[in-house]
């Protein structure tokens, strides 16, 4: 199978590889896929709680080159966006940017799922934390 130049570039020079502190309240973690399916993506965002802007994004991916490229690209796009803007990223945007062939579309779907999962995790944490703050204020 021939890979597009952009897929090769992300594979050879993956952006934002690594991990953020998953216990931090400002970090959202999304883990999607399964080893049996041949891909697992972990995508993390760190959000500035003042302005809701994603300040940092990291990924680690077990999967084919297109899966690695999709998640690498996703972290690039996430940085600087607000959480709401990040939710607008669609798998088709990734397909177009990386020129993924039909058999690799599931890689882009996985990346979109990972973004959503990370944001959902972040929002859950915020949701849990706010009542705690409220309680503290009352006390």
């Amino acid at each position: 199978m021939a890979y597009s130049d952009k897929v090769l570039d992300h594979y050879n020079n993956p952006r934002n590889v690594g991990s953020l502190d998953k216990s931090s309240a400002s970090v959202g973690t999304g883990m999607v896929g399964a080893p049996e399916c041949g891909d697992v993506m972990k995508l993390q965002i760190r959000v500035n709680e003042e302005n809701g802007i994603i300040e940092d994004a990291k990924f680690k991916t077990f999967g084919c080159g297109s899966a690695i490229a999709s998640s690498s690209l996703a972290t690039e796009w996430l940085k600087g966006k607000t959480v709401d803007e990040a939710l607008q990223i669609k798998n088709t945007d990734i397909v177009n940017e990386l020129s993924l062939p039909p058999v690799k579309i599931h890689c882009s779907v996985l990346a979109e799922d990972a973004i959503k999962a990370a944001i959902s995790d972040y929002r859950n944490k915020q949701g849990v934390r706010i009542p705690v703050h409220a309680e503290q204020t009352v006390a």
Partner: protein
Amino acid sequence: MKTPIYLDNHATTRMDPRVLDAMLPYFTEHFGNAASRNHEFGWVAEQAVDKARKQIADLIGTTPREIIFTSGATESDNLAIKGVAEMYAEKGNHIITAATEHKAVLDTCKKLEKHGYRVTYLPLKGDGLIDLDMLRESITDKTILVTIMYANNEIGVIQPVAEIGKICRERGVLFHTDGVQAIGKVPVNVNTDNIDIMSITAHKLYGPKGVGALYVRRKNPRVQITAQMDGGGHERGMRSGTLNVPGIVGLGEACAIAQREMPQEMVRMRYLRDKLRAKLEAGLDEVYINGSMEHRLPQNLNMSFAYVEGESLLMGINDIAVSSGSACTSATLEPSYVLKALGLGDDIAHSSIRFGIGRFNTEEEIDYVAGKLIDVVKKLRELSPLYEMAKEGIDLSKVVWAAH
């Protein structure tokens, strides 16, 4: 050293230049039809075919009259299985094969099932070998054929062919083996191995593509096969069609070279394979061999690199030609059915690489491949969330994955 490096010799082999030299005169100079009995052109072609028949027969310990030429192993497998099924239909309708056979065998068996035959697909033990007791128990009075490959094309595991043949003979059942990965690589003898029918192909032993043969036993027992193509009645009526004389000459020469050089070549192949394995095991943690190391072709190594997906690994070693059992490299998006038949999880099957070492590989190439692979696996593990989790002590088998 030139790149890309070819280490996919179970898929096909580079033709030996000596084979090409033997073939060349039979394209333009000696172009006769081996079936032309009444002139010099035909006689020369027939002599060349006779010589090749003898070279092939010598390699597998039989006589030239038991060699039927075909277009390759897929045709040979089809002819053997369908030909026996049709010829012995009155005796029975049951065939026994194994889960890790080549598709040319499995799909032929599936076709026969549609025509009322019953097929038993033996499971494999974890080391890739068949369970002989299970084979014994599977034979019924309706069984007409057992077809089990000599050596597997993915994991290189060599089946206990002589014992399988012995069981078949005791029970009066014919034994066919797809010998393509073993012939010319390790000693194969149809008499000591108790084989009745065997598929042969040229391109796996440094010969040309598009030519093969079928060994069909003439005595003890006399095997009969119904032809699957109608025509001029060539090859004792079992396979019609004008003989591919240059191809046959190539197959014969490839067999002669293999027979002469096998003892030294086996030692060299094993040395290179063992060196590759030792280097990879020294350079990386959590690498696993798939299939028995003891009963294995000296040319084969099949390894899984845990926490790294096969296609991404191939992408990183794009100057090395190997195969992966990963789903992403196949059209079906299913990981290797051979590895799954050994009981491997899909995750470890996705992480596998098959190395097929061949006559033209050098030690320098093996050293390069080992070094490159170690670098790429390490890089991909840095990228792998699974490796990170494993290092944190998380038992990956207990994680509930959001499967998609």
